[in-house]
């Protein structure tokens, strides 16, 4: 066994079968089962140490919420959640995430120009540095308006980028919208071609996720308010942008997001066309758009 046997040179046809993938699958599931056992052993400890047991109880919750439940969800959702487009993004644990409620046409640079002109701030990627800044800004109370958003997946890919707007003086609340480029030639159900799909929701508070017990943002149930806010800001700041609403596109896609928050929508999918937005708007937006 060596690196060379594992890694066929790029360009070779992908193999149908890989013992390595099966082995990985076994380890993936075995680790999940072992983690359940570990959580149980830690919980047992919390009974043995008196008041000090509280520490073990917190450790138990950490293991359960951040290791065990995500892994179990990952294993189970691989089996039961379809991997094709169903109008919903998925969380990194495979759970159904925010609903896709916006579509865009236009180049990436035009999209950036339009969003920036509309007073939106691009979110940083999740890195060690940005994570540290979140902690620091939470402790010191300073604002961090480029704070990263959690990864959500569509077409098996994390969002390409995300934009957000802070709510004055409240780190628990924010507007945010994630963007995914659609695969080449991909059509929406019903046959319409769009360049980008987006999911916009409003974080209203911080709370516990229903499914993983992790601390997370809770989103506002009426996702149409946020959708219309995004459309209104983009149209307001970009006279060249146009909108075309696909009525009742996702009437059936409601219920809950990945954190267990209920969501409801009238089902309209606005398709914003920003392909006529002049790129000069990027420079114009910088002084005025940084509100």
């Amino acid at each position, binding site marked *: *066994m*060596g*690196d060379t046997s*594992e*890694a066929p*040179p*790029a360009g070779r046809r*992908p*193999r*149908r*079968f*890989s*013992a*390595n*993938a*099966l*082995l*990985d*699958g076994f*380890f*993936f599931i*075995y*680790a*999940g089962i*072992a*983690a359940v*056992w*570990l959580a149980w*052993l*830690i919980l*047992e*400890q919390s009974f*043995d140490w008196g008041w000090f047991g509280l520490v073990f109880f917190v450790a138990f919750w950490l293991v359960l919420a951040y*290791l065990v439940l995500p*892994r179990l969800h*990952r294993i189970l959702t691989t089996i039961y959640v379809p*991997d094709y487009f169903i109008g919903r993004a998925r969380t990194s644990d495979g759970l159904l995430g925010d609903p896709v409620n916006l579509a865009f046409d236009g180049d990436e640079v035009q999209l950036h120009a339009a969003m920036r002109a509309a007073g939106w701030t691009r979110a940083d990627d999740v890195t*060690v540095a940005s994570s540290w800044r979140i902690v620091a800004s939470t402790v010191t109370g300073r604002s961090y308006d480029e704070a990263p958003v959690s990864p959500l997946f569509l077409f098996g890919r994390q969002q390409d980028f995300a934009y957000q707007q802070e709510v004055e003086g409240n780190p628990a609340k924010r507007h945010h919208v994630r963007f995914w480029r659609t695969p080449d030639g991909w059509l929406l159900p019903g046959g319409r071609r769009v360049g980008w799909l987006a999911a916009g929701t409003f974080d209203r508070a911080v709370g516990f996720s229903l499914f993983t017990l992790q601390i997370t943002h809770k989103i506002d149930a009426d996702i149409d308010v946020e959708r219309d806010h995004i459309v209104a800001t983009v149209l307001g700041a970009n006279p060249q942008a146009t909108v075309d609403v696909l009525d009742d596109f996702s009437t059936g896609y409601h219920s809950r997001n990945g954190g267990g928050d209920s969501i409801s929508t009238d089902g309209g999918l606005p398709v914003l066309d920003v392909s006529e937005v002049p790129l000069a708007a990027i420079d114009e937006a910088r002084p005025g758009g940084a509100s």
Partner: protein
Amino acid sequence: MSGKRPAYESPGDLARPPDRPPASMRRPAATAFGAVLVVLRVVAGVVWLIALAVQWRQVLEGDFGVVLEGDVDAQTLSDTGLVVILAGGGVVLAVELVFAVLVYRGSNWARITVMLFATISITWSAVDYFGGDAEITLRTTLVTLALDILVLLALSSRNARAYARRGRG
């Protein structure tokens, strides 16, 4: 495109190798964390060896019923035994440390080997715990078992797998 799509997703999909991420992929936290955990496992091993050396006499008498009564030959023998155990343990730990580095640099075979040994160790503990009467508490083997399970969780995660299988060159 030709032919109809099957109405169900084939279980064979589970055995299909995942897409190979580009060589430029950044090292995910899971890989770095997994390597750090292997290092912690080595540290736990060093502590265990030191404890064994310090309590060598009690261990011989208590666990094996060997009593050394001023017998010079027996004393030499027991010292040799200790040196052999320490040397053997040291070699094993050194190899483990090399594996930690390889895992950190994204070697797939090192990752799978480490997971294999973690799995064996976890299974061993589980058999002892569920089949025998071994107690697993903080005072006995909970720390090493927890490290093994965390190593397995970290290195079997999708990010760690993708990083170890990324394209090279």
